[in-house]
């Protein structure tokens, strides 16, 4: 994708911007321009998304038959492991931060780049090296530990390529850490004159909160994977029950990172939704401060609830009670956001372009996913549905129905800014509908399956579950087609789409109002001075292309 963009003829006549200011593969591979780096990431994570998606496709095909339709159980174990690893670490976690975040954080705050542009490029290369190790694990036979690497299975008993996969994830973790570090310093130190904290776009608040989590949680994952790797290499380790080690301790360390990680995956999406809802309702955000504070509250509270993944692990009941109570608390800031978005929509001047369709889909689906999270936070209910498809449906509603839809909505919204081209609106709306329908058809039956008792990570199931599984697989096929449609027209639009004006949505924000589409290499002619609040929409004139 990087090569295609570099060869396009300047869409705005002879105007020079960041895409055409230099040509050639070296100008891309050695760039320190945050905008180009965001596109490098966009290409890489799209590749990983389709690999992880392909694993999911094979899983769903296998589940058409109760006895497993197309693969052996050992292979199935590898499929769900690779699907999880790739989707979590190589797609969801970097998705919005490394693409939209990298592109927009400097632009939204009126800076010419991030604080550490070379670190930014380094973090992309680190991502690639990590992806390389993980894909090596995939090609050389796969890993079957589950994406959660529970010990002692992963550290002692498995003979698959746990070490390469763990190494890949360990390396990629540093990519996250550097991105988070970059964002934190940039947001603190490089805001334009007049841009006080409470005038920042809510997307920046959510990127800031996400970066805090990146920086504080990821190192714990790093040390945990290091310990598992050492245990595999040296055949002794601190999680080995044979010498008194505690496998549950691994889970504590793992989930201390991985629960905040799920907030890394959703917070940026929430930031995108705040931008989309305000732009397409032509209204300032209702409860701006509440939304900003709730992002920070999520960043803190997300670290207090990890034990809810461990209710049936042998963890103490008293710890379980504490984690359960705190898990109810962490739902509150998320709910606050949903209320505020809804209130923003109320009496707004709403238009239904594709980004808004994704945003509306997000609000509904995220709410459903979030509410089912509360079911899981209740100790007694969780004992029944732990490790069933209910859990899967819960997190898929949030990750796919939430995060991926927010990601697609954001990509569509900022596409004209990033590429200078518009995509075909009707195809975009059609794809949004297909995705919404395919998604619900895939994952709603899984709530029922889980409640009825179908375990997760099983290659086969009792025959009475077949109808729901077939429904789910049908939905997955529709969802897959739905994802392919934007892939096609977005790439098409780079060459053949109509040129975009600087602000096709008539949206507020420095990236829209102070810079052409696409922006010049240095983002702005002159450094903007901010004098108004965020989302200071004057009229209720609807957004139009």
């Amino acid at each position, binding site marked *: 994708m990087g090569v295609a963009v570099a060869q396009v003829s300047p869409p705005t006549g002879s105007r020079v911007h960041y895409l055409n200011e230099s040509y050639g593969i070296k100008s891309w591979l050695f760039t320190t321009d945050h905008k180009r780096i965001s596109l490098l990431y966009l290409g890489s994570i799209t590749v990983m998304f389709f690999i992880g998606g392909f694993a999911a496709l094979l899983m769903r095909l296998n589940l058409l038959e109760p006895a497993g339709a197309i693969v052996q159980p050992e292979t199935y174990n590898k499929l769900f492991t690779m699907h999880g690893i790739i989707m979590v670490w190589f797609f969801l976690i970097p998705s919005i931060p490394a693409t939209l975040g990298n592109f927009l954080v400097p632009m939204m705050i009126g800076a010419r780049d991030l604080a550490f542009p070379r670190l930014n490029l380094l973090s992309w290369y680190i991502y690639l090296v990590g992806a390389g190790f993980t894909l090596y694990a995939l090609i050389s036979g796969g890993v079957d530990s589950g994406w959660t690497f529970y010990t002692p299975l992963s550290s002692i008993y498995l003979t698959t390529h746990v070490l390469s996969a763990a190494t890949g994830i360990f390396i990629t973790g540093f990519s996250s850490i550097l991105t988070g570090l970059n964002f934190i310093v940039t947001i603190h130190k490089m805001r334009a004159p007049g841009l006080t904290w409470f005038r920042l776009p809510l997307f920046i608040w959510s990127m800031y909160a996400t970066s805090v989590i990146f920086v504080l949680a990821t190192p714990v994952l790093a040390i945990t994977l290091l310990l598992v790797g050492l245990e595999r290499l040296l055949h002794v380790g601190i999680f080995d029950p044979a010498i008194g080690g505690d496998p549950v301790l691994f889970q504590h360390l793992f989930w201390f990172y991985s629960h905040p990680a799920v907030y890394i995956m959703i917070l940026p999406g929430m930031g995108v939704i705040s931008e989309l809802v305000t732009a397409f309702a032509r209204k300032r955000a209702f409860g701006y401060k509440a939304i900003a504070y709730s992002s920070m509250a999520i960043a803190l509270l997300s670290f207090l609830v990890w034990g809810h993944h461990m209710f049936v692990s042998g963890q103490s009941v008293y*710890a379980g009670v504490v984690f359960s109570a705190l898990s109810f608390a962490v739902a509150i800031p998320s709910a606050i956001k949903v209320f505020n978005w809804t209130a923003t929509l109320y009496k707004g001047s709403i238009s239904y372009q594709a980004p808004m369709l994704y945003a509306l889909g997000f609000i509904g689906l995220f709410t459903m996913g979030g509410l089912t999270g509360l079911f899981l936070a209740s100790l007694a209910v969780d004992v029944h549905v732990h490790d069933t498809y209910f859990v899967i449906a819960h997190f898929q509603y949030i990750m796919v129905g939430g995060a991926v839809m927010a990601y697609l909505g954001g990509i569509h919204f900022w596409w004209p800014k990033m590429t200078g081209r518009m995509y075909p609106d009707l195809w975009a709306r059609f794809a949004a509908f297909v995705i919404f329908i395919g998604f619900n058809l895939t994952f709603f039956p899984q709530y029922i399956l889980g409640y009825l008792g179908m375990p997760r990570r099983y290659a086969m199931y009792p025959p009475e579950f077949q109808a729901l599984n077939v429904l789910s697989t049908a939905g997955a096929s529709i969802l897959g087609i739905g994802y392919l449609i934007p892939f096609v027209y977005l790439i098409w639009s780079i060459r053949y789409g109509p040129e975009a004006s600087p602000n096709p949505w008539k949206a507020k924000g420095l990236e829209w109002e102070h810079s052409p589409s696409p922006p010049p290499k240095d983002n702005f002619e002159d450094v903007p001075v901010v004098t108004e609040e965020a989302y200071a929409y004057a009229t209720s004139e609807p957004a139009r292309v």
Partner: protein
Amino acid sequence: MAEPLVPVRTYTMVFVALLALAALTTGLAYIDLGPFNTVAALAIAAAKMLLVALFFMHVWYKPGLTRIVILAAFFWLSLLVSMTLIDVFTRNWTPQPTGWLPGS
């Protein structure tokens, strides 16, 4: 550049204090103080850390943001330690079942 120049005298005094504390903690380890051995060792280590951070790393002379960053790191670490220990220390408070049947 706006930072004040820390005098050599300050650095020297801090260094001497550090050496003294290191000697103290080593010496205390040869005396049996029961559980207080651990408390003393950690307290002395914390004091040494503060001296290095405040004066060698200039945190004493820095604005609040630097302090918030460090405090946040230690606070978050304390969450990891404390909540893990809540589990480890209370696991034996309820009887552990040995099987699936009631009464086992």
